[in-house]
């Protein structure tokens, strides 16, 4: 499992290269494009200039407040990508740790951890977040991202645990034990690489979820505040004019889809690079 260059191995597949390229492009778009675009908060003419279809002046059209949709999609990338990257990494890591420990240790450890997960799944996330809102009125974005991450690992842990339950019975795990490998080594050297399948799927799927979740939170008084744009928020705001002015929500929606597809390609590469058996 010693890989001198994980990145190089990962990028050996063409699809992973395409994914990395696409993500780089989206990040650069979010960082650089706003420099050349109008102020995303400016409302030039809220009566006459609202909901204009795409044109040379506003390639993605304007929204219900006459703001430039392209500029908002570009600036929105910052919030949405930050949320996606940090929250997904956090929840995948936590889910993986809990899942591996529960599945490998079994017995009482497994029972306690999984019943905590059950209880967590039974209580709506909304109320936990509402309590946080009461306690922390003006939550900064980093804190929000961490909270999305640490409340999102429950399902992942169950998926990883299921995989470990199955793997634990495999011959090579007993062999590792026989050769004197400690529990830590077995869990992270032998079991972890083999749980990457469901873990990466969960992480990929979570990217789209958390971008929309962030927007949902702005309706609770959490999340980013106006006028800062985010992709999810733009989609929600464009809901009322979905059929009459589809460009308001279509372009941020396409941005999310592009991000998810790019992450999926990258995840495929990561799996190929880390999985011991995949050709």
């Amino acid at each position, binding site marked *: 499992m010693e890989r001198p260059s994980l990145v190089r191995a990962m990028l050996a597949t063409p699809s992973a290269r395409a994914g990395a390229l696409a993500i780089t492009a989206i990040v650069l778009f979010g960082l650089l494009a706003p420099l050349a675009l109008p102020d995303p908060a400016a409302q030039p003419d809220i009566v006459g200039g609202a909901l204009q279809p795409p044109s040379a002046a506003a390639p993605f059209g304007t929204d219900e407040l006459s703001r430039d949709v392209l500029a908002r999609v570009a600036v929105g990338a910052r919030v949405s990508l930050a949320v996606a990257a940090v929250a997904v990494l956090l929840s995948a890591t936590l889910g993986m740790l809990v899942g591996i420990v529960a599945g490998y240790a079994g017995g009482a450890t497994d029972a306690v951890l999984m019943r905590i997960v059950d*209880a967590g799944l*039974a209580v*709506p996330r909304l109320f936990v977040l509402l309590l946080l809102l009461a306690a922390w009125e003006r939550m900064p974005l980093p804190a929000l991202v961490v909270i999305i991450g640490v409340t999102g690992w429950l399902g992942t842990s169950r998926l990883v645990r299921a995989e470990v339950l199955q793997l634990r019975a495999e011959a090579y795990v007993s062999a590792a034990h026989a050769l004197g490998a400690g529990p830590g080594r077995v869990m992270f050297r032998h079991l972890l690489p083999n749980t990457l399948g469901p873990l990466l799927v969960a992480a990929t799927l979570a990217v789209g979820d958390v971008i929309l979740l962030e927007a949902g939170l702005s309706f609770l008084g959490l999340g980013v505040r106006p006028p800062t744009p985010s992709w999810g928020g733009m989609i929600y705001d464009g809901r009322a004019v979905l059929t009459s002015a589809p460009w308001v929500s279509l372009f941020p*929606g396409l941005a999310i889809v592009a991000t*998810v597809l790019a992450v999926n390609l990258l995840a495929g590469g990561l799996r190929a690079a880390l999985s011991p058996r995949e050709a």
Partner: protein
Amino acid sequence: MARWLAGRLLQALITAALAVVLMFFLVRAAPGDPLARLSEDRQLSPEAAAVLRARYGLDQPAGRQFRSFATGLVRGDLGTSIEYGRPVTELLRERLPGSVLLGGTVLLLTFGLGSWLGALQAVRRGAMDRLASAVALTLYATPSFWLALVLAWLVGIEWRLLPAAGMRDPLLPADAGALERLADLLRHLVLPSVTLAAVNLAATMRYQRAAMLEVLQQPWIATARARGLGDGAVHWRHAFRNALFPVVTLFGLWLPLLVAGSVFVEKIFAWPGLGALAADAVGSRDYPVLMGASLLVTALVVLGSLLADVAYAVLDPRVRRP
């Protein structure tokens, strides 16, 4: 097995009880006034608010409120909805059929179709696999309300092929036959269930595909092939069964869909389910309805987890604990 199951059941019960207690105090600790909804049309006077607070026991300390909730629960009485002024058990009973019908259809479609398609992708890799992945992920990244609105607009409004909302046609004659009623129900079911299935399909497909790829590289698959088994038998009888773990887990995780549903989709299609009822109860802090709905969700969460654990043992006997 019986002892393991009994222990596991006990754990489930304790978990459910703890979750309900947690939920009870959490909803009351959350900011927001349960009478807010009643003052939306007209600001309540302080006197009127005091009477209503006393009527719903909101003036009592949380500990006492919990005691009356718990004693009511034992008798099967979940209290009276603050917003609707009706018994919660009645409200839940009215909404349960709609939820189970929609949730059941969606679970059937997602898991039946999803795991088949995912497995198919794994055994026939290539251009079709990549295309299917892209389509499924695109649908998954599409917000469910967005797809719901587009489908309602295209199919319900532009083409007028299917009803745009609701679970049944209120103008259906009173003497309509059972078949006519069933047809009416199915016509209303199509759009919401297709929306939810399309959005969720990617998850089962991806997990099934990943697990299948994993299993197909196992040495014993090669052994089975060497024994002369055909591709079909290897793939569908051996590999598929061993690759079901993630999908079974996911099913356990999604079982609450039967009652919780999808709030957005229920609302956009005006589907009379529990998801929308519970979401409205959150939005109005209708504590009794909220607790009733969360009881059902909790039951299905622990049941889903339990069923998944049982399924592991059935699928792969080596997993079973001593």
